[in-house]
Structure formats: C-alpha cells, structure tokens
C-alpha cells in the first residue's frame, strides 16, 4: 500500500515538472542581460540597414522567428500600469513595428526569458528533518518527504528574494515508543504516517528557509494498536534547503 502511495507521489511530481517545462518553452518574451549588437531587418530576416545598433541591457523583446542561426526579434515595452486603456500586445499598431536580427548564440548567451508576473506556481519536494510536537512537548527526527505545491511571490527579482506559500502532502516515518503510546509498546517502533502540512518558505538566492505546520496520521489499525499520543496533533518544523520547481503565471 505504501509503495503505491510513493509511486503515486513520484508520478504527480514528475507530471507537474514536465508541465512546467512546456509552459516555459512557450514563453517568447526575452530581456537582454548585456548590451548586444543588432541589425535592422524585415520580418523575413533580410537585413535592410547595415548600421550597427546596440540593444541596451534590460531591453525587452519578442522572438518573432528563428531561422537556422538567425533570430528575428522586435522590441516591446511591457506595460504594468493600465490607466491608459488597453495595452495588450494585440492592440499595438503593428505598422510601427521594427524588426532586428541577432544570432541564436546571442539569444542563448545574452538574453533570458522575462517573467510576466511576480507570482509563480511552485511544486517540488520538501524534507522536514525535525518535528517539534506539543502537549507534551517533544522533538523527533521523523523524516518526512512528499509533494508540495503552492504559490511563490517574487519580492525582488534582482536579489532573487521570494516568499512561497505551500501546501504539502506526503509520507512520514514516525517513531513510537512506550511514552507516546501510553505503554502499549515497550520498544521503539517505526510506523508510516500520512502527513499534510502548510508552510512558508523564504528564498534568498540559493538559500531557502521554511516554517511548516502539519499533522501526521497513522493508519486506523496502528492507532487502535498503539494509541499514538500525537495522532492528528499539530507539529512544527523548520526546514532548510528545498527542491522546488516553479513556473510563471501570466497576468491578464
């Protein structure tokens, strides 16, 4: 039974992962990270002006077409403030578009995709190595692992600072002993438990620190057998270092 659960969780994780990657591939909005030489061309990529132009860092552009080693791009101004009417891309005057040519190598090494909103969906795995249990207070090394999903809000993109709100489900390994079972067992017994949790993770660069609140549920059979003291009671855990995968939510 537990093996089935683990397989299901792994399948769920990888299904979400592949969805995230396909969503990313469709993102055609880029930003130059450093200045880049460009040439003016028409929409089919023919250079119409040999004057060397330089695109500045942080300039945003759409990838219009790609032909072997050539990329045809056009610059776009992202509008956050909608007070001036509808600024969706389809409402732009396409007759004012100018197209530019860059190489595929320049696209790969001098540009990165642009996030369209500060909110991402996140999915991944979270480990909770230590759990603090209350009433009576106890701390255990009941290792839990499971799928976690939620939303990530980017506080500062330059500093890579973000805060995640997460909901998790998974399987935990809980140790029960005579103290936590009212003497039903005299030796330590490891049991599997279903775990649900909510948490907040603060991300700063590659560092991730999280605080989780959750509940462990051992099976009915085991609960009748052991009368586990912490069945369905809350625990708190601090976690450091998570494996999270995120994909962007486009704002309408």
């Amino acid at each position, binding site marked *: 039974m537990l093996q089935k659960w683990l397989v299901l969780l792994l399948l769920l994780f990888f299904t979400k992962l592949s969805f995230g990657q396909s969503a990313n591939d469709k993102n055609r909005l880029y930003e130059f990270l450093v200045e880049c030489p460009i040439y003016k061309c028409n929409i089919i990529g023919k250079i119409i*002006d040999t004057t060397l132009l330089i695109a500045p860092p942080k*300039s945003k552009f759409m990838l219009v077409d790609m032909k072997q080693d050539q990329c045809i791009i056009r*610059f776009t101004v992202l509008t956050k403030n909608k007070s*001036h009417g509808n600024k969706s891309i389809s409402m732009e*005057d396409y007759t004012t578009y100018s197209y530019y040519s860059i190489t595929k190598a320049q696209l790969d090494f001098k540009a990165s995709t642009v996030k369209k909103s500060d909110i991402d969906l996140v999915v991944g795995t979270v480990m909770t190595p230590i759990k603090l249990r209350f009433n009576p207070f106890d701390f255990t090394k009941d290792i839990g692992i499971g799928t976690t999903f939620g939303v990530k809000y980017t506080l500062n993109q330059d500093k890579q600072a973000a805060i995640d709100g997460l909901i998790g489900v998974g399987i935990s390994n809980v140790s029960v002993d005579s103290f936590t079972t009212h003497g039903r067992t005299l030796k330590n017994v490891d049991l599997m438990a279903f775990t649900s949790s909510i948490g907040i993770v603060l991300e700063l660069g590659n560092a991730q620190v999280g605080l989780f609140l959750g509940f462990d549920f051992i099976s009915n059979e085991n609960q009748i057998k052991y009368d586990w003291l912490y069945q369905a009671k809350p625990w708190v855990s601090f976690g450091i270092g998570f494996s999270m995968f995120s994909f962007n939510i486009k704002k309408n």
Partner: protein
Amino acid sequence: MKPLLIIFVFIFNWNSHNDIQFKVSIGKLPDCNGFNFCSISKDNTIQKRENEVLAYINVNDEKHIEFSFIKRSISDQLFLKYFSTGTFLLDEDFIFAPEICETLNIERCKLKQGKYEISDSYDKYIVVFNY
C-alpha cells in the same frame, strides 16, 4: 442656441489643448547625449534632428504631466537608448522654457528627476512625469 455655443467652445478648446504637438529633444545639454531633455519647443515641423521626437504634452493634474511620444517619430537609436528598457530616466530635474510653461499653463515649470515607467499605447509611448 447659447448652450450649444458653450459646448462647441468647450470642445474646441479641449481639442486644441490636446492637439498641441511639441518637438522634444532627448538628451542632456550641452551635447544632448545623456538621460534628460535637451529642449522642448512648440515647433512641430517634420524636419527634425536625430535626437528629436514629436510628443503631445498634457497636464494630468497639479502633480503629473503626461508626455505622449509618437512612435513613428522615434528613430531606432533613440528607441533603443531611451525607450526599450521600459523605463524613462530623467537623471536630474528638467526646467521648462517659460513659453512652454505658459502654453501648458503650469506654475511649477520643473519635471522632477527619477525613473518613470513607459506605457505602450497603440501608436504612442506614454510617460507620466512628476512636476
């Protein structure tokens, strides 16, 4: 008849106010090469220099002035340097010439330095400055 006349005069004044086109020289004195305005004039002749664009200027309220830069009047170099990042940089306060101030009917003739978001509006790029 009188109300109609008043409405006509109002509409005419409103339109004429919004239709004033300015020639804006982007850059910074003395060589017009920085991030500011070199000059703003009411001259809207088609002939213009490399760093000049045409724009409508409207006073939104007592704190904000809206510049609507006409896309077709912006050269590639100017677009790349000043508009492509989505932020218009005014590296120090810009002071309007007295006649422009008079035309716009504003008392404080100074745009405050800062980074201003550029909005894309069909055939114009719109920047709302604080003054």
